[in-house]
């Protein structure tokens, strides 16, 4: 069953096409990753899917409601959390939850029930009188997510929820996302950290308003990345890097601690060429391994090297 169906969704601001005819589906209860560089059209898309911004063309059905025809019904049935706006720091934990529950029109009994639930998932049981601003970042993040789903929506949109969060808090936060998803909630999430995208069931990547890749993390790595990536350990890191970055068949080079990573064109599968080159340059290669690309490698590749210039 699809929880979100997007068809030919387009948004223009004057002559500028921010979102250009994109279509995709999100299944119920899946964790769906929405990726793209800054300015790719991510926020505009999310705003349309949340019923805040009207599409120029096309439509999306979110939780059974059309964003073009009944944006207010969409708003009632979704949750939204961003890194920027989430909670009022100068209010107590309980007050924040009452405020959010009030906005969504929860009855007193329902509100109490849901408040208890949020306090539990945020590890804040018995601490509802604490000032929100005094909470550590990771806890605040969980509380913000709880507040975003206090009205039990079917779908929750998370816009860069983990930006600037440390690894331990991030891991806990993803556990919570998984819990929500196992309760049947569809999670639509954007992130700049591509190792997090590995946690998603399905992913789409957009660039300049267009959809340029879709699939699960494994498919993205096999279907879209034709270059191979090698890790090379040598006695002279800098010299090896300088030598290899000059070669035409080498697409990209980078230093990785005491090793270097190179990305080479698909047709190059003869490693002896690299060995020979280095040898002639007086560099001894200790180890050369083909490594599994990360989603970041795929992403950079798809967005084209000209973007890195």
């Amino acid at each position, binding site marked *: 069953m699809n929880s979100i169906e997007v068809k030919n969704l387009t948004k223009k601001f004057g002559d500028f096409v921010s979102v250009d005819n994109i279509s995709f589906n999100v299944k119920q209860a899946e964790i769906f990753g929405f990726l793209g*560089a800054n300015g790719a059209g991510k926020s505009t898309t999310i705003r349309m899917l949340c019923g805040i911004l009207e599409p120029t063309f096309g439509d999306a059905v979110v939780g059974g409601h059309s964003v073009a025809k009944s944006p207010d019904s969409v708003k009632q049935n979704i949750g939204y959390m961003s890194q920027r706006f989430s909670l009022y720091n100068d209010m107590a934990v309980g007050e924040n939850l009452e405020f959010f529950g009030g906005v969504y029109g929860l009855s007193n009994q329902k509100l109490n029930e849901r408040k208890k639930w949020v306090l539990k998932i945020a590890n804040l049981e018995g601490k509802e009188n604490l000032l929100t601003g005094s909470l550590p970042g990771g806890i605040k993040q969980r509380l913000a997510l709880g507040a975003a789903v206090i009205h039990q929506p079917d779908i929750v949109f998370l816009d860069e929820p983990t930006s600037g969060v*440390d*690894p331990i808090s991030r891991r806990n936060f993803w556990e919570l996302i998984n819990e929500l998803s196992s309760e049947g909630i569809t999670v639509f999430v954007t992130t700049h*950290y591509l190792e997090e995208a590995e946690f998603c069931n399905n992913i789409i990547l957009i660039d300049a308003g267009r959809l340029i890749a879709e699939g699960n993390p494994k498919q993205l790595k096999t279907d879209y990345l034709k270059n191979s990536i090698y890790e090379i350990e040598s006695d002279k890191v800098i010299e090896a890097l300088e030598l290899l970055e000059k070669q035409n068949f080498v697409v990209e080079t980078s*230093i990785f601690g005491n090793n270097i990573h190179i990305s080479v064109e698909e047709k190059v599968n003869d490693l002896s060429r690299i060995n020979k080159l280095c040898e002639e340059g007086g560099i001894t290669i200790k180890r050369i391994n083909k490594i599994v690309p990360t989603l970041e490698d795929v992403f950079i590749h798809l967005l084209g090297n000209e973007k890195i210039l």
Partner: protein
Amino acid sequence: MNNIIEITSLRKSYGEIKAVNDISLSVNKGEMFGLVGPDGAGKTTMIRILCGLIIQESGNVKILDKNLSQSRKEIQKNIGYLSQKFSLYGDLSVDENIEFFAEIHNVKDYFKRRDELLEFSRLKSFRNRTAEKLSGGMKQKLALVCSLIHEPKILFLDEPTTGVDPVSRRDFWKILSKLLKDGITIFMSTPYLDEAERCNRVALMNTGKIIALDTPQKIKEKMDRQIIEIVCNPVRAAYQTIKKNTGFEVQMFGDRINVVVENYSSALSSIKKILTENKVRITDERIIPPSLENVFMHLIKDAE
């Protein structure tokens, strides 16, 4: 001189909180050194002490063979510092921002250096644009350029890539690679463990203490646990089953789970048994090398 930074028994507290609690370490000339840890570990305090911006309670810091408490000004001439919130002037142009930093550092003939830096960071075509009109990634590059105008020998970066998109991050790393090629030593703090993999050596920091220090490879090799990757269906049921019924640490990915175990062979049979009992179908299983994140989580749990 091989150790460009030497830290001995460094301490700094804020009230009850020991932000830096008896840390000793040294950094080699020309290396990229990573200080990795969660929020509140003490990373920023540490960097600020090294840059001479705050003063330690006790302990000793030697940078470029000089004692920090005696030769602060001289050391500061030779180091660059990029803070988490880079301090650029939004209403000044790219060129003017650099000029401002050149003047602070008393650099007289900075024109050539400025051109070189703009060239190398690919900001040249934006030189007349005001800083507030730059994208996040470009602002970050400009801040980096400003911190390099006085040709420092050591560059301190405090969580430089927080909130920057992947394309700009990759670009930033390319620039850092070039600096390393030129022989600059980089001391960087980061909460991201995939970035730590790019360092020559890494210090894992938690609650003011260093809990591991070595090359990323050696740190991973030292982990006395194994990671089993299990591709299975339904993944969620598998995750919940392991979490509720065993003491193993488990992490869920899209179509698989990773379980941290002490002994592969004995653990695997019990995991398989319990998963099958809970109607989870296993399609594939294998041992995978631990990531720095696995090691970090494990060390922190042990420390607690």
